[in-house]
């Protein structure tokens, strides 16, 4: 079913789901939504499966013309959203009629990314087990690329439309601060750094630079001192890996993380931390907080519990 024509594409709007698993051994990044929390919320708000494909909107959002009556929801970074010039809220179901214009107005005020879900889920082909776009590789999502003006987007026809609004209670809406603290598990190459280097890493704030994207966040700040400077044998990377290249400034790998690399990894940001970091935009600050593996595990289990409990927390109001 045709749902939208792209009037303006926004800065970088891509189709994402929960990512592709099982292909990292072939050098294929996982990809998928950067902020799993906001992503899951949008799907729940239109009654989709947790894994349905949505749009990920970055800093400047798109303007869309509805080609059919659809139910949508937007959640994530604080955008001004309008239907035919009337401001409409984020974090709840919206009814959009054929011919309506749905527009992200201006840029994200807090946070960096928002998700747009359409009831039924975005309909693009599954490539290597996922609908996520991997722009560098040119595959997945909508023709392997970000949206452009004139693109016509399809969604799966829902079996039925929702008969009540779904609204996320205000206490579940995150505040995206200009400074965020994320938890890290130290290692696996902590021993490459001096004691002073590790202290520097844990006691300073780092700024997100404009050279940050879905592949990784390049941070600026106090350089981290190394003890061993010989080149390491290339090994595996994962989302959240904090690499320290020659200049001593951290690079945190995000959703499109390459699968292997040779820079030493001082620590790994937790799964929940990576989702939170996804909302940091250039100029925002990040602090790294060392946690034990047991604490990281507890955080992971709590994050999973929150995500799987979201649909039960929604308030339903009749239209």
């Amino acid at each position, binding site marked *: 079913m045709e749902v939208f024509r792209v009037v303006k594409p926004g800065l970088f709007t891509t189709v994402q789901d929960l990512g592709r698993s099982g292909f990292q*051994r072939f*050098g294929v990044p996982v990809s998928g939504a950067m902020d799993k929390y906001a992503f899951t919320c949008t799907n729940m708000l239109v009654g989709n499966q947790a894994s349905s494909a949505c749009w990920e909107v970055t800093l400047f959002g798109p303007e869309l013309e509805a080609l059919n009556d659809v139910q949508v929801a937007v959640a994530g970074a604080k955008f001004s959203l309008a239907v035919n010039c009337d401001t409409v809220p984020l974090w709840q179901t919206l009814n959009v009629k054929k011919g309506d214009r749905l527009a992200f107005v201006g840029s994200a005020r807090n946070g960096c990314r928002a998700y747009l879900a359409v009831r039924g889920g975005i309909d693009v082909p599954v*490539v290597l087990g996922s609908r996520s776009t991997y722009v560098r590789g040119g595959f997945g999502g909508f023709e392997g690329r970000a949206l452009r003006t004139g693109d016509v987007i399809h969604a799966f026809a829902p079996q039925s439309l929702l008969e009540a609004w779904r609204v996320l209670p205000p206490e579940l809406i995150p505040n995206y601060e200009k400074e965020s603290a994320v938890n890290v*598990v130290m290692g696996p190459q902590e021993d490459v750094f001096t004691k002073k280097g590790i202290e520097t890493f844990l006691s300073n704030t780092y700024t997100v630079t404009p050279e940050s994207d879905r592949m990784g966040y390049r941070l600026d700040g106090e350089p981290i001192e190394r003890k061993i400077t010989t080149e390491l044998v290339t090994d595996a990377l994962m989302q*959240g890996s904090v690499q320290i290249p020659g200049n001593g400034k951290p690079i945190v790998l995000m959703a499109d993380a390459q699968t*292997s690399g040779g820079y030493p990894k001082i620590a*790994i940001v937790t*799964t929940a931390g990576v989702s939170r970091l996804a909302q940091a935009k250039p100029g925002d600050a990040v602090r790294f907080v060392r946690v034990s593996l047991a604490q990281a595990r507890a*955080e992971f289990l709590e994050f999973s519990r929150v995500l799987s409990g979201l649909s039960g927390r929604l308030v339903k109001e009749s239209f």
Partner: protein
Amino acid sequence: MGDRAVLVKFGESIDLSINRKVHALCRAIEQSKIVGAEECVPTYASLLVYYNPLKTSYERLVYQLKDLEPKLDEFSAKIETWQVEVPTVYGGEFGPDLLNVAKHHNLTPEEVVRIHSETEYTVYMIGFIEGFPYMGKVPDSIATPRLETPRLKVPAGSVGIAGNQTGIYPAESPGGWQIIGRTPLKLFNPHARQPALLQPGDRVRFKSITEAEFEKIRKE
């Protein structure tokens, strides 16, 4: 590693016997269907094992992995590998660094081509970009360090040398390897069931071809 992976290290060097253990453990984990183990990423000397913390724990998984260790030789012996021939045009615009490599070793370009194509390489791992095979070992007689300044664009199919490694760029990408030739083979296809042409453990030989043969193979 992090809150949902275990990194198993077998060594710190590029060595075939270490790499075999990495792939044997990868195979062993898949065949023993360990609960909660989700994805394995083999590299030169270590294996990254992702797990689902809702289904298992770090401690439990480490315990199970240690249990597999004595059986690795058995798994290693059973891994099926293929011999693959990679047709390659050496030198000229397809291999702009062939002369560098020759000069670095006081060899003629023809001697570099002979040595590179006479050697059988093993695919140690796939990484860097999708489908990029890291292969070794390049004989010391032609092993050459990376370029001092990486190129912003290396064409798809480029065959390169970096130290004792040789590799093939599956897609156009920035890169710092010494490019000595180009193959018309397509190394990665996301729409195929088996997306990467080369698999870890495969044995690879390069075959010198002409530009006319390159065009012919490319069109097939």
